[in-house]
Every structure is written in C-alpha cells, then in structure tokens.
C-alpha cells in the first residue's frame, strides 16, 4: 500500500466519520390539516429556552400550504422581540428570552409544511435546551387547541424540535397528523459524499492493484 492509497483511505474514513458525528440540525415538519380544511385559526411557533448562555437561532423556512395565510398577530405573543421575518418567508427565532414566539392567522387547507434549521455554538456537558415547537389553535390566545387536544399540559402543540447546548438535536411529533423528519444538512451531505467518494476511489485503486 503506497502513500497515496493511505492518504485516500484516511481522508475517506475521516470524511465518513465526520458526516456521522455531525448532528442533523434540520427537520422537515409536515402537518395533515385536512380535518381542519376551511377552518380559520392560528399557527403558533415558539422558541423556548433553558439557559441562554449558549446563543442559538432556529429558522423556519420553505413554508408551504394549500391553505391561506392571514395576518401576523403581534399582539398575542408573549415575547416577539427576538423573532424576525414573516411567513411564508423565513422566520428566525433567537433564544434571547425564555419564550420567543410568533403567531399568524391562517385558513387551513389540507396540509402545511416547513423546514426548521438551527445555528449555534455548541458547548459540551451543559444540560440546557432550546425547543422550537408548533401549535395550532382556533383562537389567537392559544386557548382553543385544534390538534393534540387532549394533551394535559401543552394541548395544541403538534411538534417539538430540540437543540441542546452540545449541538445535538431531537424531535418529537405529538399528533398522528404531524410528521417531523430529520433532513441532512447540505454540509453533512457533502461530507458524506466526499467520504463515500474517497472510499470508492480507494477500493477501485486497490482492485486495480
């Protein structure tokens, strides 16, 4: 095995390992709102945090629905000062306060979806978390949940996506109508691709030899 082979192998292994080690920090959220089709209500997005020592941002982008968005409601949010943007465009939430939220009227169609991605500077061994969650309500104040209505503590909330201070992410769907799926980040895909390419090149050269 000559030096070039070793170099390819090392690069491939490093890239492959890197792609595995990096957490998937984007999630695709899809909600089946067919049971609400034609109803009016509110989309309530919030970014809640324990320990803001590690600053982070959650960005909602790629919003799509066959329903109709109404006006953004800036009155019935708890703290919108650290939230920027308006749907259907991107909306960015910073974890400045313990609650950073966004409320928007909507006439529901059959589905809605969006992408959630995070940016942060991870710090290991800290227990804190920031959670981007989605709730659907029939009123602006969040007192009439439309889905996940029997939840004893957070009725109306259908999806929660966590960013821990160590950079790890996790997601939970709270209603059968809602799917939350991790989406590999472009950078992660690139790393994975380079790693696979390296392994292929190494394997081909080895085969030739």
């Amino acid at each position: 095995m000559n030096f070039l082979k070793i170099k390819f192998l090392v690069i491939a292994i490093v890239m492959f390992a890197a792609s595995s080690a990096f957490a998937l920090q984007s999630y695709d959220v899809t909600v089946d709102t067919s049971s609400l089709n034609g109803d009016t209500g509110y989309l309530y997005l919030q970014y809640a945090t324990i320990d803001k020592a590690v600053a982070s941002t959650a960005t909602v982008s790629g919003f799509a629905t066959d329903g109709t968005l109404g006006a953004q409601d800036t009155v019935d949010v708890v703290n919108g000062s650290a939230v920027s943007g308006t749907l259907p465009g991107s909306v960015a939430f910073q974890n400045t306060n313990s609650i950073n939220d966004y409320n928007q009227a909507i006439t529901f169609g059959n589905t809605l979806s969006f992408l959630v991605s995070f940016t942060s500077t991870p710090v290991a061994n800290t227990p804190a978390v920031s959670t981007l969650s989605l709730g659907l309500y029939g009123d602006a104040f969040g007192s009439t949940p439309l889905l996940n209505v029997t939840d004893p503590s957070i009725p109306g909330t259908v999806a929660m996506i966590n960013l821990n201070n160590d950079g790890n992410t996790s997601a939970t769907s709270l209603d059968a109508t809602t799917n939350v799926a991790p989406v590999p980040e472009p950078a992660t895909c690139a790393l994975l691709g380079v790693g696979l390419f390296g392994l292929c090149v190494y394997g081909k050269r080895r085969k030739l030899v």
Partner: protein
Amino acid sequence: MKLTTKKTLQTLGLVSAFSLLGTSAFAGILKSPYLIYEMPNTTMTVLWQDSATETTNTLSWGTDTTYSLNSVTVPEESNTTPGRGGVVNQHRYKITGLQPNTMYYYQVADDTNGVYGTGSFITAPSESATSVRFIGQGDSRGNPFVLNDIMKAITGFYGLPGNGDYQRLSIHNGDWVASDAESNWTTEWFDLTKRASRAFTASTPIDGVKGNHDNTSGYSTTFPKYFPFPYPNETLQSGKTSTYNNLYWSMDYGPVHITFIDVYSPLTPGSAQYNWVTADLAATTKPWKIVCFHEGTYTAGSDADSTAMRIYEQASSPIFQQYNVDFLYGGHSHNYARAGAYNAAQAGTDPIALNMPHMTSGGGGAPIYQPDMTNTGSYPHVITAWPADEFMTFDVEGNTLTMTANQVTGQTSLTTDYPLSNTFPANDGISGHLYLQPIETTVLHHFTANVTPQVTATTSNLVYNRATKLYYGTLTVTNNSTTDINGAVDVVLDGMIDLNMIGTPSNMYATSSKITQNAGVSSIQTSMIANNPATGKSTVNASSVALKSNARLTNATGSQNGEPMIRATSNGIPAGTSVTVPLTFSNTTNAAITFNPIVFQE
C-alpha cells in the same frame, strides 16, 4: 416523632400554668419556675428564685397533674458552690430517673406562699432516635411585651394539630436581655407580669448561648447564674467571685448535636475554645450538627457581622465541611435571614463555608431591623431576608431536616395565617390575638451520594403554554456508568431559588416605627428575595453565578438548601439506562431560566 395522644393533657398543662400564673400575686417568688436541659435524656432541670421569704420549697412531678411520681425539698443554691457564685435565693433541681421522650408535669410550691408555679415538659428523645422537633429563637432583649407575644405565639403553635412535640426544646442564640444586670433579667426575661412568657418558660427547656447584650467585656455574671449550662471550661474572671467567660458548650438531642460558641471569649485558631469546638465536632456521632452563636458571620444587618466569627469561619470551614456541619444558627441582626454561597464562584473572595445555610433568627423581641438586601455593601451573600418578629421551628425526620421561620403578627388579612387565639388560652390581657405566617422553609437532606459524575441530565421539549402561563419540559437522567444507582434519585436544580418554600408574610410594622431603618437601606422591603442573591460583594451582578429568582419549578417534589428538587425515580437507574421526568416552570418575567442539575442518590 409525635406525642399527639398527650396533646390534650399537654394543652391542659399549659392552660393550667397560664391560669395559675395569671392569678398569682407572685408572693414569695422573683423568678417563676423555668427549665433548662443539661443532659442526659433522663433528666430535666427546674429553676426558680424566691424573694427570700420562703420556708420550704418543694418540687413535685409526675406523668399527670397530680405530680405523684416524686417530691423533693429544694433549698436555695449555695453561694460557695464552684461555678455558682453570686446566686441569691436561686433554686435549682435536676430531676433524674425520667423516661426519655415522655411528657411530665411538675409543680413548685412553698409551705408559706403556696404554689409558685406549674409546668410540663417532654424529656429528650432516646439516643437512637432518628427524628426530633424543637424551636429556635434569638434576640429577645429589650421588649418584654413583644417577647411575651412571641412566646405566646410559640405556645399557640404547640397547640396546632400535630405540633405538640415541638414543645420539647428551644435553642436561644443570644441577647436574652438588654444588659446582663440583675434588674434587666428581672424586668425583661423573667417579668412576672408577662404571663405567656412565664407559661412558655415553665413548659419548654431553653438552652443557648449568650449575646453581646448578655456580655460585659467578654464576661458575664447574671447570664450563667440563670442559665448554668454544662460549660466545660467556664472560667472565673480574675478578682471576681461570680463573673465568667468561656461559656461555650455543646449538647446532644436525639439525632442532633448542637455546639454553642461564645463569640466573646477567645476563639482564634489555637485558642482553647477553637480547639474544643474542633474536638467536639470531631467526637460527635450524631448525624445532624448545628453550630449556634450570637453574632453571625453573614447576615442581612444592620448589626455588623462579626469579624471574629468571620476569621473563625475562615479557619473552620474545612472543619465544618469535614465534620458535615449542616448549618449555622445565629442572631444579632434583628430579622430573619438566610445567607450562603453554593460554590466558590459565588463566594468570591469571601471566606464563607460553602453550601451551608447561614441562618439569622434575630426577631425574638428586640426592635426589628430592615435587612440589607442589596448584596452590594457590608452584608454579602444574602439570599432571603425579612424584617419580622419571628421564631424558627426545626424538624428532623431521618435524613431530612426542615426548618421554618415563622412571623408573629397581629394581622388577620392573609389566608395563610394561623389564628392562634383559637387554640391557645384566651387573651392574656397583654397581647392581642396573634397570627403566624411562614416566612421561609429550608430543607436539608443527607443524601447517600452525589452521583452527578456518573450521569448525564438533559432537558428537552420545553414548551410554553399561554393558557396556563407555564413552561412544560422534561428532564432525562442517564446512568452512563457500569454501576447501578439504587433507590430514589433526586435532581436539585442548582442555581434556582425554591420559591415554593417561601411564604407571603405581611409586614405589620412597615408603616410604623417598629422597624429600625438600616443605614443604607432606603426603602421598605417588599420581597424576601435579595438582589443578586447569593452573590458576594465582589461579584455583584455576575449573572453567571447569581441565583435566579424569577422562575419557579412548580412541580418540585422537594427542595435542598433553598433550591428546588425533583424526584427522578424511586426505583433506581440501572447502568446504561435512563429515566425521564416532567418539569413545569412558572416564569413571570419570562427571563432566562437557568439551572445546573445535581443528581443525588437518596
């Protein structure tokens, strides 16, 4: 430990004492019968002082008010008895042969003058007892009317359901009277016209230590005369016949060991007292250890913190840690306060023993001081404080000690008040109806182990509910080690104040002159939580080390040293597995919620 079956008899005994004292013309008596506990737990010491007209004084006792168990003649103490110089007309009898943890009743009578007084007491628990309750008070000086109110309130507290066995002991952290003169003791602590006081001191042994007002240039004459505790190294002042220093001592009480420090005798490292206290703490096998003194090291003012005690604490912190002293109990500043530093960052440059409550209970009757809540001046490390006439209760149950500061007021406005007048003898003609309001409860646990290094604790799924205005999340504890964690596992949210254990007392004196304004304190306090709580004056506004007082863990299952705690599991966490518990917070300001989870095995 409860003696509820004897509650009726007990109340009858107190009422009897109260009534008897109320009808007595005090003929022949200057100091009505009172109690101290000198150990062991089969004894109780009864003291009183005649007016030199008595013939034969008789002490009788029994397990009911027939006092049929025994009767003895008790002559006046001798002036020539070592350590008892200066006593005049003082009687003292140490009853022996009693059963531990048992209610007794006694009567003191004179052949000529009749009954001097009656009372009752509960003997100390057995040496193997794991639970006990008792009272704490301090700075009773200068105002016998208020002292009478407080003692009436404590006695009324005994009468509340389930509280009967608090009667067994009160510890006093000093400043019993305004001055150590005979006249002060007679007209303040022993004022015969203050019938609630007389009933209390006749029915609760009070053990303690002297304060600066009980002290003259390091020595005391009258304090040891009336409170002759078993001082191991009581030292007669040169050229005097009845003046002493080195009035430090210690006592065992069930599972508790209490060490009393004489702040006014030498206590620098190497001194006799320093060495004695060190040896005392090393020798005790009791699981709970309290160090009691008058002038505190870290208080909310306005009487200055003791420089001597700070030097002592600096030297003794390793000793306190080594021998697991649970908390420090002092007075001097006339209010309630809890000070402390949980870690070195909070301590800053101050020589404060870490993770140890510094309790001030100085609202025992003296004029109340506004606490300095700023943590910016002479009183650093204040966590909570409140200006109030108060006393404390201590409740040891196995591995848990619960201590509560109780405000005594005349207000009826709060639903949390306990109307004592319904349970304690009707108005004694001096104080009106009194009410109790809890100021703060602090709980200390003796955990089996801090298992934080072998676990990870992560929070997730934090969602705010606008309808309930609560934050809901989860806490997952994962045992990363190869060793099982057995039994109950608790998580302390270090860095938060446990608001669940803080009361909502009113301040009945806020608009009157009852409170002495504290220099530097410009306004009446409206919150019990200090500014920048638990930061030192050298680290003011250091948000990274300050306790957070805006958020409350509303589903806490307990607390540890003023911080909220939640039970993660009662069934252990096997190696490599996790448990998840819900967390619920209220957060009125919606400012950042911050805590550091510390995981303990019960």
